[in-house]
């Protein structure tokens, strides 16, 4: 696999779309390409952020934040 092919696979990898046999091969190539591979995979995670930002924000129930902060504060004080 050349690096261009690895890049294609990386984009599939970050969205969890690699099939098991492809994943095995991908991990081998990932080791082979080392830091260059890790840097590229990190960049690919920007796709996650982009997909989330492409959606219209939804309104959460106001009670959710109150419940969350009560739990966090209780845990923080424990």
């Amino acid at each position: 696999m050349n690096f261009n092919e690895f890049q294609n696979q990386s984009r599939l990898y970050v969205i969890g779309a690699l099939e098991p046999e492809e994943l095995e091969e991908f991990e081998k190539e990932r080791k082979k390409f080392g830091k260059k591979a890790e840097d590229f995979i990190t960049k690919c995670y920007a796709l996650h952020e982009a997909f989330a930002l492409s959606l219209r924000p939804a309104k959460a129930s106001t009670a959710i934040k109150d419940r969350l902060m009560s739990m966090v504060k209780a845990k923080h004080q424990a």
Partner: protein
Amino acid sequence: MKPSKLVASTRPKPKKRVRLAKSGARSQPVLPQLEPGAPSDFDLMKGIQRGDPDALSQLYDRYNGILKALILRVIHNEAEADDLLQEIFMEIWNQAKNFSAQKGKPLGWMVTLARRRAIDGLRKKQAYARAEERLQNETEQQPDAWVHNATEEEIELSDTRRLIRKVIKSLPPPQQQAIDLAFFRGMSQREIAAKTNTPLGTVKTRLELGLKKIYDGLKELKDEL
């Protein structure tokens, strides 16, 4: 184009309107800018790592709308989405020590975490079949619902969102659908092939081409994404 505004989100409005940058020209900011003096997302993550509940509160105010939209896109249930949103912010609080600024931005980390939890939640609650049925109906009625589920008149888009949607809209519908099923449904290539009655190789090609186009499009926005 109508003036843009974030809907149901407490994120500050951008100070400037921005346009999709052409190659070599991306001097303008893309994500909405924070108020002067407001802590950055990285500052808030550091606060959470130190155990400051106020930092989590601010991060929640900034991103609950985006994360809930993502969860809803996966599980299609308002009450479950709220519960999951709470669990996810609790996990952000508990797992903040695992966040590393070298591996990306806080929003990316949170989205990755939220997506995984939402897809896990979908499967655990055995609502998959029901959601599949709903998705099937959606797909039949609105093949490209991901990007065309409302008109621009109905939604006032933030600048950032509008730019990203523009990139996504530029893809052929089959590529959009393949990416939608993989990202928001957690489907494998084989599952997508079976669902859409498409050869596996075609699904792979659609995913590769579509993701590459989006990735390349986002390069124009890379200072912010």
